[in-house]
Structures are given as structure tokens and as C-alpha cells.
């Protein structure tokens, strides 16, 4: 009953909005809103300052790069499983683009290194962060806090444009002579400086653009959340997702500049031939390098991981926020321990700045420093476990709706759990000595990011799709996508733990075949035939995972015009303000300024007419 009533009421709202929007002047005196109705296609979709359009721009670009990064790793997986054999389907294309680097469709070690470096870079900086922070943050945060737009709409537009420029530089770097960067996504010096060619220079220029983009974005998000909360939206009434984005904003704001500084210095090493990261006596190509020397390779690693570790939480916090929203809505009960969640996220934000050197136990930086970082690393696992526990307990006693977004959100919990717990042996410096630089590390962080963050982001796509387009995504295709992906992800990454613990190192372009016992009999510590054979199974599983994405891609485009139409503006019967707007929300989002009167998750409130009470309504 309530459901139908609220639907029609919102329907009226929508009509009012559309008529008001057509006639009322939308530009304000400050010129910060362009007249959206008057602009052409370019102004509406390309040079838009509307946070929702920018969110969609970020989302589409990032999803494309998610696919690009996946294609790169599929080529690499083939090379790992069948070293020296021509890559099927894509082999011919690679030969025509990269020439000698992929002659006959076979991947050379150089091309493997290039793809490896760019897979990491693309997935982290071009796909997941923009999707988690740029896309969902832009789309959802202003709606959830009851704001008409971001605090600085034009800065927001420039932020996307810097990101797009960075993407272009990164993509172009594949096609320059010598190809793209080859020194891994971490670009350790002196290797990164010593590799000939312009790939690393392009990488650095691209990174400076991406860092500028995320800096502008972070300033904008934090200012928006501080300044533009609707009346009554106190800090403890903020939806959990907004808190997660708020802390993410601070991480980006404060952790990225050191990498920008490091990037400038590495660029100087590359272009001006300085020696920031190049030690005295460095030999390049068998000869003493013609440099002044005196630099410190460790300095690069410190500066890189000072960003790199908070970056891990940039990847995971928005995902946790999305899962929190979806879990609360689909269990029809408040998040358990909202305050603990908020304080845990804040604690993670602070502590994430003092754990970076746990990536560097094997660099010889000293045991005292290792001990410090080992301690802080163990401490940061406490708030992470609190978050996961709160989300698990939130399920208890709920009447759970098992729709596609909820399935992805539910799968996130154990997957992220596996990823997090397998990180503990890496955080202890004595066990890290054995596991460092093996496939165990790959399995660990991919469990956090791939079936963890990416599942949460996919959950977010399915969840907010109806708000953006006015139509649901297809449930059947969604469930196929989910179940096959879940199985595929685990088949891909679970064997890697075993391979890693058996001593298989990362970054070997033949998947360790050279080191196997099969090739060199009686080799001490060589890899057994079983370990090498697992490479093939993992590659097949990756193929399955690739197939699982086809229903998603079809679903994504097909549902824009053919999906089931939403019955109301609040199709999931959610409480947060993002669902109390017309669908799709017009420029300016809300017809009148919403006044918030309650916390974010008033589901199943005793005495209320429906099982949910929106933040701006009385029961």
C-alpha cells in the first residue's frame, strides 16, 4: 500500500520537476551552472559540469579500462601457461601492432613485462580508483547528502578531463617506438630509468595527469561533504558510503602528492639525467653509467609506497561503503554497529599512512624499521576486521533479498575476508621472507581487489543502475554473471596461493618453466610438475572468468532501452536521500532542499507504516 502511494507521489514530483526544469532559468548568478537544456550534445555529455554526467563519464571510461586491463592479463596468462606458443585470437593483432615484440603472435619477455606493468597501472589508476571514487563518488555522494551538485562543478569537470588526458597518454605509450613502460606498476628505480625508450617517460607524464585529476577530485569531494550536507544531515546521519568516500578523499589528497614528487624526480632522472634514485657506481648495459650518482633507490620505494599503501585503502574503502549500503537495504535492517564502522574507517585512514614499508621488508632497510611497520600493519588489521564483522552481523536476522546486487555484496564479504587474512603472513617480516615476490602475493592482493573490490563495484552498478537509467538490469543475466564470476575468480586465484607457497616467483614470463624440476632434473627448490601444470588450469579458469563477463556487457547495454522499468523513484525501497529524487535526477537533483530528520538506515522501524523510513520523512 505504502509502496504504491509513495510511487505515485514521486511520479508527481517527477512531472513537476520536468516542467519546472524546462521553464525555470537554471543558471544561477555565479555562473557555476551552465544552462543544461540549451547546450548541445557536447555541453550536455562531454563538457558537462553536472556531477551525475561526470560520474557516468568516469564510470564508462573506467569500465572500458577494466576490460583493457583484463585483455592484457589474458594475453599474459596464455604466455604463462603455454610459453612460446602463439596467442590465439589476439596473436595476429599483437604482431601487427608490436612487430618484433610479438613476432608470429608469440609474446616476448619484453612484451610480457610491458603488459605486466600496464596491467597493474591500468587496473589500479585507470579502472578501479576512477570507478570507485570518480564514478560512484560523483554519482552518489551529492545525492546522498542532499546537495544540488558538487561544491566546485567546473573543477569536477576538469578533474575528469585530466583523467581522460592521463588515459590517452597511457594508451598512446603502447604505440610509441619501444612501447610502454616495462618496470612494473611500481616503477622501481634504477630499473625504470635504465630501460631504454620513452615508455617510462610517458608513464610518468600520464601519472602526473592522473594525480592532478585525483587531487582535484579529492578536494572537491571533501569540500562537498563538509559544506553541502542538507539541513539536518549531521555527521552521524551520513550514510556509511559517504563516510567511506570522505576518508578515501583524504587518502588521495595526502598520499598522492609524495608520488607526484617522486614522479617529478624520476622524470628528471630520465630526462635531465639527474641521479635522485641512481646510486654511485651504477652500471647500465655493462658499462658504468655516465651519471653523478649519489642517489638512493630506496628513496623511490619509500615515496612510492607512501602512496601505494593508502592507495590500497582507496581501492577498498569505497567498495566497503557500497557493500554497506546494499547490505542495509537488502536485509531490511539497520547496519549493525554504524558508529563502529565509521570509527573503523577513520582509524584505517589514519593508520594507513604509517604502514607503507611492509612492502619493503626485503630491501635491507633494517630490522628496527621492519619491526615498527610490522606492528602498525598488525594494528591496521583490527579496524578492517571490525568492519567485516559488523557487515557480517548485519546479515543476522535480516529477511534477505537475494537480488543480483546483494549476491555480489554478499560474495564480497568472504572474498575480502580471504584476501585480508592471507595478508597477515605478508605483514610479518619473518614469514614475508618466504612469501615475498611469489604468486602468494598476487593471490593475496587480487583476492582483495578482484573478487573483493570489483565484486562490490559490480554490485554498485547493478544497484544504482535503476537510478541512472530508470530501468533495472536483467536479473537472469545478472545471476549468470555472478555465479560464473564467483566460481571463475576462485579457480583463478586459489591455486596461486599454493603456487606461491611452493616458491613460484612473480614476473617470470614463462610461468616458472625455467625453474621447474621437469626441465632441470635434481634442481634444489625447483618447481614441481604439478605447480607448473596449475598454470594451465588457472589460464582456463581465467578464460571462464572472461566468458562470465559477456552476459554483463550485454546486460549493461541491452537494459538501457529494454530493461524492466522501475515502478517508482525508489525501486529498492531504500532510506537514503539518493533514492528520494526523481528518476533520473534532474540537474540540481532535488526540487526543494531536503531536510533530514533521521539516521541513514531506518529499516523495519517499529510502528512505521512501511518497512523503511526515508531520511527526510517522518514515519
Amino acid at each position, binding site marked *: 500500500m505504502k509502496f504504491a502511494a509513495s510511487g505515485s507521489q514521486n511520479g508527481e514530483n517527477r512531472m513537476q520537476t520536468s516542467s519546472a526544469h524546462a521553464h525555470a532559468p537554471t543558471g544561477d548568478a555565479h555562473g557555476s551552472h551552465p544552462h543544461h537544456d540549451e547546450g548541445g550534445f557536447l555541453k550536455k555529455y562531454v563538457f558537462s559540469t553536472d556531477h551525475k554526467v561526470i560520474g557516468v563519464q568516469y564510470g564508462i571510461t573506467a569500465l572500458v579500462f577494466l576490460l583493457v586491463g583484463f585483455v592484457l592479463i589474458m594475453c599474459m596468462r596464455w604466455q604463462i601457461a603455454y610459453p612460446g606458443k602463439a596467442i590465439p585470437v589476439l596473436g595476429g593483432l599483437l604482431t601487427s601492432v608490436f612487430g618484433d615484440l610479438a613476432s608470429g603472435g608469440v609474446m616476448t619477455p619484453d612484451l610480457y613485462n610491458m603488459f605486466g606493468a600496464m596491467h597493474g597501472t591500468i587496473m589500479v589508476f585507470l579502472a578501479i580508483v576512477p570507478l570507485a571514487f570518480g564514478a560512484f563518488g560523483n554519482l552518489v555522494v551529492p545525492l546522498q547528502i542532499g546537495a544540488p551538485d558538487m561544491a566546485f562543478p567546473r573543477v569536477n569537470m576538469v578533474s575528469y578531463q585530466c583523467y581522460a588526458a592521463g588515459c590517452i597518454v597511457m594508451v598512446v605509450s603502447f604505440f610509441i617506438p619501444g612501447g610502454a613502460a616495462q618496470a612494473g606498476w611500481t616503477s622501481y628505480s634504477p630499473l625504470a630509468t635504465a630501460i631504454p625508450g620513452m615508455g617510462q617517460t610517458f608513464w610518468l607524464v600520464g601519472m602526473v595527469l592522473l594525480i592532478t585529476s585525483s587531487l582535484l577530485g579529492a578536494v572537491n569531494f571533501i569540500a562537498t561533504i563538509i559544506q553541502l550536507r542538507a539541513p539536518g544531515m549531521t555527521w552521524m546521519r551520513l550514510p556509511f558510503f559517504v563516510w567511506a568516500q570522505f576518508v578515501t578523499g583524504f587518502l588521495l589528497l595526502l598520499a598522492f602528492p609524495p608520488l607526484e614528487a617522486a614522479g617529478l*624526480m624520476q622524470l628528471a632522472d630520465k630526462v*635531465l639525467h639527474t641521479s635522485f634514485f641512481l646510486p654511485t657506481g651504477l652500471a647500465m648495459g655493462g658499462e658504468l653509467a655516465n651519471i653523478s650518482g649519489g642517489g638512493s633507490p630506496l628513496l623511490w620505494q619509500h615515496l612510492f609506497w607512501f602512496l601505494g599503501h593508502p592507495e590500497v585503502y582507496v581501492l577498498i574503502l569505497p567498495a566497503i561503503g557500497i557493500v554497506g549500503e546494499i547490505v542495509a537495504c537488502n536485509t531490511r535492517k539497520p547496519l549493525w554497529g554504524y558508529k563502529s564502522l565509521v570509527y573503523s574507517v577513520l582509524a584505517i585512514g589514519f593508520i594507513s599512512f604509517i604502514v607503507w614499508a611492509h612492502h619493503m621488508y626485503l630491501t635491507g632497510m633494517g630490522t628496527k624499521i621492519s619491526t615498527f611497520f610490522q606492528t602498525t600493519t598488525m594494528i591496521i588489521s583490527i579496524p578492517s576486521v571490525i568492519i567485516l564483522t559488523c557487515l557480517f552481523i548485519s546479515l543476522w536476522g535480516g529477511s534477505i533479498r537475494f537480488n543480483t546486487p546483494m549476491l555480489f555484496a554478499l560474495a564480497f564479504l568472504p572474498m575480502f575476508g580471504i584476501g585480508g587474512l592471507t595478508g597477515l603472513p605478508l605483514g610479518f617480516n619473518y614469514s614475508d621472507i618466504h612469501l615475498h615476490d611469489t604468486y602468494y602475493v598476487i593471490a593475496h592482493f587480487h583476492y582483495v581487489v578482484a573478487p573483493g573490490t570489483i565484486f562490490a563495484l559490480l554490485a554498485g552498478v547493478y544497484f544504482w543502475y535503476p537510478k541512472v537509467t530508470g530501468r533495472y538490469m536483467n536479473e537472469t543475466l545478472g545471476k549468470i554473471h555472478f555465479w560464473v564470476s564467483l566460481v571463475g575468480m576462485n579457480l583463478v586465484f586459489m591455486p596461486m596461493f599454493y603456487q606461491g607457497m611452493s616458491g613460484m616467483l612473480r614476473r617470470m614470463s614463462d610461468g616458472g618453466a625455467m625453474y621447474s624440476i621437469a626441465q632441470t632434473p635434481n634442481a634444489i627448490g625447483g618447481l614441481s610438475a604439478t605447480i607448473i601444470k596449475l598454470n594451465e588450469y588457472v589460464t582456463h579458469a581465467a578464460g571462464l572468468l572472461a566468458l562470465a563477463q559477456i552476459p554483463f556487457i550485454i546486460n549493461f547495454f541491452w537494459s538501457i532501452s529494454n530493461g524492466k522499468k522501475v515502478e517508482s523513484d525508489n525501486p529498492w525501497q531504500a532510506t537514503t536521500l539518493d533514492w528520494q529524487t526523481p528518476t533520473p535526477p534532474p540537474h540540481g537533483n532535488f526540487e526543494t532542499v531536503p531536510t533530514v530528520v533521521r539516521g541513514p538506515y531506518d529499516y523495519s522501524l517499529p510502528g512505521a507504516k512501511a518497512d523503511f523510513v526515508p531520511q527526510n520523512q517522518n514515519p
Partner: protein
Amino acid sequence: MEIPYTVEPRKDTGLYNAKVGIWLFLASEVMLFGALFSSYILLRVGADVGEWPRDLLNVPIGTVNTLVLICSSVTVVLGWAALKQNNFAKYRMFQTITVLCAFAFVGIKSFEYYDKFTHYQVITKDGKVYDGHLHSRTAEQVVLQGHEIDASKGKAEGVRKAQKADKHGKEIVIKTSDIQKIGNYGPKHNTYMSIYFTLTGLHALHVIAGALVIAYILWPGARMWKTEPERYANRVEVSGLFWHFVDLVWIFLFPVLYLL
């Protein structure tokens, strides 16, 4: 719905949007320069004995430049205060001085850069080290105005001792055929020069950017004073906050690079 608090401050935070924005931006700038200062420390600690130059830069020139920037910081505040008192002419006068100070600073800094780019160090094939300003350079020979260096305790330490003993040095003629290595005090000379050029170069870019913004608000952007005076004053305030930050960076740069 319009975006609120673009001009008037929000009650519970006491700030308008742009002010929150600039403080956040400055926080990230602190991290940017902080990373470079940390690099300075690590490079200096890790430098070989006697290879980290001291007393290399001209302290009187640096002091003058410091005073120029401090002066511009004062005029920025005075300009903003004049604007708040509705005295536009006075504001314009003070801010003009600010922009002129910025130009003066960059001018003096370029002179210092020029000095370093014409300062050469030559290592001959028999292991001798010569250091001084380039007098002339032909295909056959190089003429330096400077010293022969005792590099037994490090080249940088040797340069320091020689300059202390005799400031101007003498004219030295070196045959090109004897030279093993020749290079000026550009960024690649040693890690000190690298971090010196990176820090001061990045700072100079900030000075130029800040001066451009202040000049834009001062002249082409001044129309806003007629239509939205409060918003205009906010712009001046925000650009002033950035300017103070740029000055503050120099207050740290000067002792670190010139004095320590």
C-alpha cells in the same frame, strides 16, 4: 537548486566553499613539498663524504629574495584589508606591489640560475679537478675563472675550501684534449644541485602561478567587484592564502638550501 555557501559562510563550519577548498589544496601542497624536503634529508644523509656542497649559494642574494617575498606577503594582507574597507584604489596599489615583488623574485632567481649554469667543473685525464665560472670555450681550450681543487676529501668540500681561501680565484686554461669530464652546475651535477633545482623550480612555478592568479583578479577579473563585491573579496582572500603558502615554502627553502 543552487549550490549553497559559494559566497556566505556555512553556519556550523564558518567557512565558504572556496576557503575549504583552498585549505584542502594547501594540505596536499604541504605533502608535495614535504616529500621533496624528506628526499632532501635522505639524499643529504646518504651522500658520500665531502660530496654535499655547503656555502655554495649566494646568501646575500637569497636574503634579498626572502625579504622581497615577505614584503609581498604583507602587501597581500594589506590589499585584502583595504578591499574589505571598500577602498579599491588602495587595494589595487598594494596588490600591484605584490605582483611586482613576484616578478622581482623570479628575476633574482633566474639570475641565480644563470650563475649556476655558467659555473663549470672540469676533471682532467690526469685526475685534477678545476672549478670556476666559464670565461670562454673553444674547440681547443676551456678558460675558467676559478681554482684548482684539492678533491682528497671530496669534490664539494674541496670547492668550499678553495672558495674560502680565495673568492675569485685565477684564470685557468685547460686544453680540450686533456679533459676527461666537463659539466656545469646544472641539475645533473650532483644530487644537491638536482634537489636544489627541483625544489626551487617547483617553488618558482608556484610563485608564477600565484602571481598570474593575483594579477588576473586584479585587472581582468575586477569587474566582479562591481557586481558581487563579497565574492570578489573572497577570491582575493583565497588567492592570498595561496600566496602566503608559497612564501612559507620559501621560508623553509632558504635556510635548508642556503644556510645549512
